[in-house]
């Protein structure tokens, strides 16, 4: 980049008045708010849906359950919903990361169970401090991910097979760790259990956040605008940004109001949302995230571009297993116990389904951390709503499966439409 300091050659034509990225005469000029709105609509019509299908799906699901049983939208139930979804939601963040690489981790459920087992055995049976137990459980996750990554890099075995083997190994370790009893209860007054079920944001803080977050978003976007303008690039119309920030603020205030009528926003939920936002920034705004997306798109191109591909694989496997371990800790803390069946049954598939329903592609290179949040909301809305209607587990599995299938079909259709409209 030796030449980067030379200023852009002055354009002799009148086109110089236009921002550098809008000078091509083939571009349909879309300036101002109207242009932005019509461009957005055109993007949606051509199949570049983003998270729109999930949001629409979520609204439909909520409307249906509200019609069947108004208690669904009651504050009490919504607070329960937010608490229920967090442990598996944290798993889903890790799943999003491996899916972005075009890989998979099938052992997250077992890792969830193992980490819960390590936590309760060290904390309750061995009497260690809660911090030591938490760190040991997280470290167990990191080590498992490290082993996966090393096996993957060294032998080139598909991650599908490695983690399938890992699923069994970790399940064995979980049962061995818990020992004869099979179930260990956490004392209800321990800080961990309190954190997961009793700690809620005070009213003033919740409302302040609901207003401050959109403001921060708006200010950050305005600063980017300023930098783009001074760099001779087009800037997003201020009105559009303001509308978006306002919509975000309204949504957050409504959610906060609904939740605060009951217990409110749990610290654990805040932790989950913060993790989602941090991972989203890491994927979109850092060199590491760009490498992850590049590898998911074309490993060979990434390797030739000088990206240390093996290191990225290793980091993602470690992160995914560590998120699974964190999910296990939060799950054990929320239920105040860990047993041999923690992380069993549908834990694995719910987490993977959440990432896919949220819009992360199974084929790598496409998706965002927000799909963990949206997807887990869909899955738990369904299971919570059906539980309210006293529908048994059999129906719940069928409905969740159907929604997963629908999400994948929408993804495939929008992919085809994107290809047809030159946005693949």
């Amino acid at each position: 980049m030796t030449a980067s300091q030379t200023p852009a050659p002055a354009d002799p034509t009148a086109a110089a008045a236009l921002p550098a990225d809008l000078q091509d005469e083939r571009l349909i000029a879309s300036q101002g708010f109207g242009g932005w709105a019509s461009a957005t609509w055109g993007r949606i019509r051509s199949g570049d849906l983003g998270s729109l299908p999930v949001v629409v799906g979520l609204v439909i699901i909520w409307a249906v359950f509200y019609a069947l049983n108004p208690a669904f939208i009651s504050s009490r139930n919504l607070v329960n919903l937010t608490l229920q979804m967090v442990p598996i939601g944290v798993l889903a963040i890790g799943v999003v990361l491996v899916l972005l690489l075009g890989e998979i981790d099938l052992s997250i459920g077992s890792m969830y169970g193992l980490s819960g087992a390590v936590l309760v055995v060290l904390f309750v049976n061995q009497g260690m401090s809660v911090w030591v137990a938490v760190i040991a459980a997280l470290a167990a996750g990191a080590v498992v991910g490290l082993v996966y990554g090393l096996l993957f890099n060294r032998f080139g075995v598909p991650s599908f097979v490695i983690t399938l083997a890992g699923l069994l190994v970790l399940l064995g370790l979980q049962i061995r760790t818990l020992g004869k009893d099979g179930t260990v209860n956490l004392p209800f007054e321990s800080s961990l259990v309190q954190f997961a079920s009793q700690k809620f944001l005070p009213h003033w803080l919740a409302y302040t956040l609901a207003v401050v977050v959109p403001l921060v978003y708006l200010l950050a976007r305005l600063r980017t605008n300023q930098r783009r303008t001074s760099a001779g690039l087009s800037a997003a119309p201020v009105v559009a940004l303001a509308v978006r920030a306002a919509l975000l603020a309204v949504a957050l205030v409504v959610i906060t109001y609904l939740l605060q009528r009951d217990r409110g926003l749990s610290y654990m939920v805040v932790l989950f949302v913060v993790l989602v936002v941090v991972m989203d920034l890491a994927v979109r705004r850092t060199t590491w995230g760009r490498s992850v997306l590049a590898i998911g798109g074309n490993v060979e191109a990434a390797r030739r571009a000088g990206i240390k591909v093996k290191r990225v694989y290793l980091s993602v496997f470690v992160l995914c297993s560590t998120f699974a371990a964190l999910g296990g800790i939060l799950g054990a803390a929320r239920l105040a116990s860990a047993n041999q069946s923690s992380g069993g049954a549908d834990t694995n598939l719910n987490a993977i389904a959440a990432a896919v329903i949220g819009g992360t592609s199974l084929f790598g290179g496409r998706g965002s951390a927000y799909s963990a949040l949206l997807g887990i909301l869909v899955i738990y809305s369904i299971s919570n709503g059906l539980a309210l209607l006293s529908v048994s587990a059999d129906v719940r599995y069928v409905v969740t499966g159907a929604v997963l299938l629908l999400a994948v079909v929408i993804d495939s259709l929008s992919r085809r439409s994107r290809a047809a409209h030159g946005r693949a």
Partner: protein
Amino acid sequence: MTTTTPAPVLSMTGVSKRFGAVQALKDIEFHVGAGEVVALVGDNGAGKSTLVKAIAGVYTPDEGDVTFDGSHVEITTPAQAQALGIATVFQDLALCDNLDVVGNLFLGNEVLRGRALDEVTMEQESWRLLRELSAKIPSVRIPVASLSGGQRQTVAIARSLLGAPKVVMLDEPTAALGVAQTAEVLNLVERLREKGLGVILISHNMSDVMAVADRVAVLRLGRNNGDFRVADTNSQEIIAAITGATTNAVTARAARRAPQEEQS
């Protein structure tokens, strides 16, 4: 067409490479000057790829001298070739379809602002680079998957220019491209020449070679088989050199005599 031969940026003399019993390259002479487009042609198995890989640092020659920019060098790794200022655009381009143009241009070479990616600077720099090549890309914020073949080639070439190279090697840049897109890429090659870069163009397409190259180096069965100035030659002569028709004594004699008779 310039009449003076530019001082060579890259020159190779007596380069040989064996793979077991196969003599892939034997005593090759090759050079490219600043602001010169040299086409490297030859039939399949003539040793083009081996020579390209020797220049790009993928293979190390068994014998021979390589001089780059006036000093003697030994190119042993691709990274070293890149550090010297030899950029290679391989035939399969190696772009990430899911990333946008900016992402692909700066892949592995991102500009940072603090710890985050500096998208504004990268986008600005992308436009500067693409304008410099007079590239026809409507937006740098669309995924590369939606670009045409010529536009993808443009992105790959633009990316090779990021490290400010002195020599650019293009492997079959017009293969599988349409008429207009081929012309676009040829324009690009001329733009590189105007920037004073040495361009090595590997191609099977004789009309492209005649249209854009200053000089044509022919390889046949791992040896030099002629070095023609495009201004003084024609496709027939080059094709004869590629296929080996000139190795026949009669045709060689006829070829030698023809220009003399024209002059007299």
